């Protein structure tokens, strides 16, 4: 048996949550220190695992662990990562680490940035959420995948409803939770259908996804169930026309939760849609890919256009996420090598980028107490690090070469060319729209003169904030310049998917 590295990474945040809850609530700095230690440890552990996978040139599912959980029903705790999920686990580690850093806050009584209200409970819920997310990415058992999926969704409700933006938090939390539960219930029904059909076909009760891959579902079965399963998960991936919960949720959530939400949770949806929908029901995927492609292409352009007209910085980023996640779905829907490769990289790239966007927006909001673009200005002189970070994020978002966004988007478009060139031409419109809104908003928020209202009481970000910004920028630049540190790994995952899709 291997060293159980994946279980440690998955359950460490949950353990940390328990420890944090045991600390007296008045001792904010102790809570923060524990949180930061746990997050750093988790990130380092997985970074080490990631490097092993990458440098070892490994393929397929690695670091596999299996424990019986409910053998009678064929449920086991089976963990493992492949080339698609490993970058996402790394992403979760990065977002958790930087999310803790930017929630640390500034205790200066004039600033009071970050999480000042009940940080103990906040970090505890955040870490339970993180455990859930890790669990989904590493689960090789369909039941466990659902189990962790719900663990990830539930704390979101509390985090938004309690620590969110006063104006819309109840509404947004409710809307988000209902959307996601409905989506996951639809998927769950599909999953149970698979489970029973597999039992009838093979005579073995098992939720093990590697077994279900070989269960020999008939084409009619796959065509029937693919859409519910895929779309149920894709709701969390923010696919048009079910994206509506997502910008509201982003806006209402506190900064670190927005980072998690857009950075990681949306990937959870796309990832589960890929792993359960496409990989277990490949024939269904082939049947319906045109529909997914249509939805995705609309999301790409529509999301960019709606982002273009927003005046609230967080709504702008929220809709830009819809647009960028549309690209992920577009890549998935091509079902070919380039498209899937791009989708894999885009999930990571967009996660880091949008986490950075929300982090910087949070830093600005905490200090200026407004997110309305027309009311902001002159931030580049006050918070240079945040400005450079936002600009780099903007360039990634535009798909500027030299950054991770380009490395991700280019193969996606190549993949679409391989399927239907008209869609590539249509979707490419979003690049110019994105450039337009990113550049105008950067200019307005960071470089226009500082409004009088903000003069005097807006200060620079803290060292913790700067560390978070630099960490996030680091990954976007390194992958942009040296794609080889992520792409070969994603390639192995893509090959596995293509094998299930039957050559291609």
């Amino acid at each position, binding site marked *: 048996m291997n060293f159980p590295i994946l279980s440690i990474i998955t359950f460490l945040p949950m353990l940390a949550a328990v420890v944090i809850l045991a600390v007296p609530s008045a001792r904010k700095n102790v809570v923060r220190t524990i949180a930061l230690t746990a997050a750093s440890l988790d990130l380092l552990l997985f970074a080490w695992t990631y490097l092993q996978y990458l440098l070892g040139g490994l393929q397929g599912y690695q670091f596999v662990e299996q424990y019986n959980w409910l053998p009678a029903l064929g449920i086991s705790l089976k963990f493992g990562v492949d080339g698609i999920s490993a970058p996402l686990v790394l992403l979760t580690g990065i977002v958790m680490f930087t999310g803790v850093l930017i929630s640390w806050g500034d205790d200066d009584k004039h600033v009071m940035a970050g999480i000042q209200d009940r940080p103990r409970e906040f970090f505890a819920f955040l870490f339970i959420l993180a455990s859930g997310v890790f669990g989904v990415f590493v689960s090789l058992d369909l039941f466990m995948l659902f189990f962790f999926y719900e663990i990830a969704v539930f704390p979101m409700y509390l985090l938004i409803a309690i620590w969110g933006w006063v104006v819309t938090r109840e509404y947004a939390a409710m809307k988000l939770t209902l959307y996601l539960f409905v989506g996951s219930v639809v998927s769950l029904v599909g999953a149970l259908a698979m489970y029973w059909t597999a039992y009838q076909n093979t005579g073995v009760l098992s939720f093990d996804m590697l077994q279900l891959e070989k269960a020999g579902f008939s084409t009619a079965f796959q065509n029937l169930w693919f859409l519910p399963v895929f779309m149920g998960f894709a709701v969390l991936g923010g696919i048009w026309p079910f994206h509506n919960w997502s910008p509201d949720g982003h806006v209402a959530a506190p900064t670190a939760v927005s980072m998690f939400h857009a950075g990681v949770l949306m990937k959870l949806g796309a990832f589960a849609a890929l792993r359960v929908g496409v990989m277990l029901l490949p024939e269904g995927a082939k049947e319906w890919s045109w529909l997914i492609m249509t939805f995705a292409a609309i999301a790409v352009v529509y999301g960019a256009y709606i982002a273009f007209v927003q005046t609230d910085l967080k709504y702008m980023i929220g809709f830009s996420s819809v647009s960028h996640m549309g690209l992920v779905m577009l890549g998935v829907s091509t079902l070919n090598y380039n498209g899937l490769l791009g989708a894999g990289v885009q999930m990571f790239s967009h996660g880091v980028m949008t986490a950075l966007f929300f982090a910087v927006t949070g830093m600005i909001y905490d200090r200026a107490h407004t997110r309305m673009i027309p009311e902001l200005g002159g931030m580049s002189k006050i918070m240079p690090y945040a400005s450079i970070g936002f600009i780099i994020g903007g360039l990634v978002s535009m798909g500027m070469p030299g950054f991770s966004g380009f490395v991700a988007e280019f193969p996606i478009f190549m993949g679409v060319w391989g399927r239907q060139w008209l869609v*590539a031409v249509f979707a490419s419109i979003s690049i110019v729209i994105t450039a337009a809104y990113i550049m105008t908003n950067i*200019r307005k928020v960071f470089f226009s003169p500082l409004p009088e209202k903000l003069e005097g009481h807006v200060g620079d970000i803290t060292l913790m904030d700067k560390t978070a910004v630099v960490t996030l920028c680091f990954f976007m630049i390194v992958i942009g310049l040296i*794609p080889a540190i992520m792409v070969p790994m994603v390639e192995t995952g893509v090959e596995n998917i293509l094998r299930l899709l039957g050559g291609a």
Partner: protein
Amino acid sequence: MDFIYSHLLSLILFLPAVSALILFLLPSGRNSLLRWFALLASLIPFALSVLLWVNYVPEQTGFQFEEQYVWYEAIHSTLHLGVDGISLTMVLLTTLLTPLAILASFSISDRVKAYMMLFLFLETGMLGVFMSLDLLIFFVFWEIGLVPMYFLINQWGSANRNYASLKFMIYTMGGSLGLLLAVQMLGVRFGTYDIVQLYSLWNSLEPGELFLGMSVSTVKTIAFWAFVIAFAIKVPVWPFHTWLPDAHTEAPTAGSMILAGVLLKLGAYGFLRLVLPFYPAEAKVFAGALAVLATAAIVFGAFGSYAQSDFKRLVAYSSVNHMGFVVLGIAAAGLAAGTSDAHIAMNGAVLQMFNHGLSAAGMFFLVGVIYERTHTRNLNDFGGLFPLVPVYGGILIFTSMASLGLPGLNGFISEFLVVRGAYPVLTVYTAISMLGLLFTGAYILKGIKSVLHGPLNEHWAHGEHQLTEINTREVLVMAPLMVLILVIGVWPMWILDVINKTVVALF
């Protein structure tokens, strides 16, 4: 030494970017340290390019100093660099103008570090376009160059900079969209982005073959226009030129120097490196259309320039006018491919790119010199300044004459070659362009007249507004440009030899 010789191109390409990163670590407040460091850092690539020029063997066809590194293996794109006579000339132009632009920026005192860093990044971006032998890498550098330029205009520009910089960005990105899609299509179809391989693969397709549900010739025609529009916007060719006067006028002086001196050449270079070799048949078919646009650029550029009362705008429109000759040469070469007319026109076009780089950079700098002293660019506010600033006046007249195409200076040689090459094949357009050249003379003389001659505007003669003479640093910026302008005008063979051998082999 061996290392330097075997990595000459990548050293020239990446040294500016590395210097920019080192610059980032230097203390922000020490302006003179930052300036001198940036200047020295940009002189090294220049020295290396001179080394490159000396070691280049014109007789040898194909690309030289090739280097190839793994970049994005999954989609078969490599960092493949190499130069031939055309790109070598452009590399030399870029590495020459960057130090001069940095020297010209010594008067900038606002956020010197960021400014200098952007300039060095810009240099890497521009050089990358000229050196790439991989279509994807070409596109990467093509786009990367936009970002520093955007911020240079947006942050250090004059009053209307927000509008101008966004227009520049959106125009160019919108234009590159077609290029991006066409590049993707080529990559998907052939599984490689290597330009040299694509030359043969792309041209070996049967015209009747089905491709994307259409015949190859239809696809090629669409892709041809996608390429042409992307490059035409950058050149810029009429009617895609409207971003240029705004961007030039609002950019800081050194930004305008580089914009006119090098960035416009990126577009023309795209025509030479990609459009003509990829689409010889289409270039022949549509040469007439290109020639119409080129003629329009020459004529309307000259008219537009004449109509300006803003000195910088006048120079900006003159770029449209002069770059029109480059496109005319390209159109002629496309139409007459393989004949000596094509070679002559092409020689003229490449040399015109180099020459316009020298004279436009010089002109923008001279506008900047007087603007820094008077804080106005309005031609009506000047007048009769020659007695006050005789040295400046002399330099301005010299550079203007080069721009006008006075025999004995560089502009004459290249424009003559273009016209000589284009006349037999595009007679009417060439004739109309020659009439346009008349107006070139008119607007240049108008500029000189309004600034230097006529009754003296007493405002600048004494008191706090008294105009001061061009200083040593500014003369040092102009000196290399003026020397080259004269040398090429008198003895162009040293540069034409390099260009000609490549042109004859390629077209």
